[in-house]
């Protein structure tokens, strides 16, 4: 382990000890803060229930992500490769992105019920715009000579798209995915907190009303795990496909 890593772990231990100590000596009320050991006790008490809820949340996130990614990338590619379409649709997409979608959620509830459907719709709408916009600009800003090159070497439209343009636009697409996916995760959990009967967001809200602070923190911890996992996955993807872009910048 490197020196930096040792210090990093030391920091985590210090924070955990302080956190636990603050509650042990009752410096902060138990309604406000739960200590790590209290969160652990909550886990022992309601662990299975929370993990089941976590699975519901994860399923909603997975479905929403799949739909958001394909819709966002698909629309972005089309809007980006047809200049006229991008020029006219771009500003509309950008301004739609600025609308705080959460005010629509009550409507989604009426339209799609309080089950997973309304969560998925809400999450897809939340994550769609940054992905579509980034993909569109990524494709649009590509040097036109790459398309000409593709045609001059006899590549088909499909080959130009998949072998040249999409790989070139990938770094932009991935930065869109980063923002869009984070929004999907947030949207699912927020929607569960607003109105639902399942999922981690629902249980956080439920236990909050009962002042089961330990349970609330357990829910928050699970949400964090979720966000961290998504982030790690995206970083990995970025490293894999975006390496040349970073190298090129460093070399330039």
């Amino acid at each position, binding site marked *: 382990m490197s020196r930096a890593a040792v210090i990093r772990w030391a920091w985590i231990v210090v924070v955990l000890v302080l956190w636990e100590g603050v509650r042990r000596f009752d410096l902060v009320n138990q309604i406000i803060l739960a200590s790590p050991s209290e969160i652990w006790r909550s886990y022992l008490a309601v662990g299975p229930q929370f993990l089941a809820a976590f699975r519901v949340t994860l399923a909603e996130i997975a479905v929403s992500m799949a739909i958001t990614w394909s819709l966002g990338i698909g629309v972005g590619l089309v809007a980006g490769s047809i200049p006229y379409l991008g020029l006219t649709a771009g500003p509309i997409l950008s301004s739609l992105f600025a609308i705080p979608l959460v005010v629509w959620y009550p409507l989604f509830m009426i339209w799609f019920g309080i089950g997973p459907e309304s969560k998925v719709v809400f999450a897809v709408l939340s994550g769609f715009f940054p992905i579509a916009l980034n993909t569109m600009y990524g494709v649009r800003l590509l*040097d036109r*000579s*790459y398309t*000409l*090159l593709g*045609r*001059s*070497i*006899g*590549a088909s439209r499909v*080959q130009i798209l998949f*072998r*040249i343009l999409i*790989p*070139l636009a990938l770094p932009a697409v991935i930065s869109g995915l980063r923002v869009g996916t984070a929004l999907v995760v947030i949207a699912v959990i927020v929607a569960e907190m607003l109105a639902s009967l399942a999922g981690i967001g629902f249980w956080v809200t439920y236990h909050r009303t009962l002042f089961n602070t330990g349970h609330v923190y357990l829910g928050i911890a699970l949400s964090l795990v979720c966000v961290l996992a998504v982030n790690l996955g995206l970083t990995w993807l970025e490293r894999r*496909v975006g390496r*040349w*872009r970073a*190298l*090129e910048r*460093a*070399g*330039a």
Partner: protein
Amino acid sequence: MNAIGAPVIEAKTVGKTYGVGRAPVRALDGVSFAVPEAAFVSLVGPSGCGKSTLLQIMGGLVPSTEGEVLIDRERVAKPMPGKIAIVFQDATLLPWKTARANVEFPLELQGIGAAERRRRSDDMLNLVGLGDFTERFPHELSGGMKQRVSIARGLAQEPRIILMDEPFGALDEQTRIKMGQELLRIWEATRKTIFLITHSLTEAIYLSDRVLVMSHRPGRIVETLTIDLPRPRTYDMIGGVEFGRARNRIWSLITADEAEGAVEP
């Protein structure tokens, strides 16, 4: 002097108008010329005169509005990857591929087998002087080296004609001169027909058998100069009388046309 053969490229009254309706732009007007087999022909002209448009029409990338371009007596209607390779101003290399993979990329799309691709990429990268850089990525190469890869990629397609659109425009002057000398060496080794667009009068005269001078928009060929300098060309010829005469002639054609057109101050 090179033996000049039958025309391999023929442009016949090529015209191009962009956009229709309210504000059509006339880019090219009645452009006719012929390029003999294995010749080195350059096209010079003021910026925005339609040089690139003409090259794209010749490469089958853009349709002409009037007239036609014949390659080997065949009308150009679409790109002809087996006959024409194009080298662009930006090297347009794929940044995630090595120099070799970039050279082999068109061949891969054309379904040429791995062994043959390998042979051609080896040959061509050696020819352009990058034999030791085959496994390098574009970001590890200098601007001149990237353009060499791009030329090797064009050559590996074994075309008869190479169209070059300001290939050295983005390079510094010293690199540019060296690349010009390299290009002459490659041309002499491969006997391809080269059609080069350039802003540099010196480059055009130094490299070419013929220089076509194009007017302001709409682009027309105002004169064709035959450059009678002996080959192989050497750098000191640039200071010679004959060279100077050719350069003055082209310059006066371009400036006269500008005064006449008076498009921009």
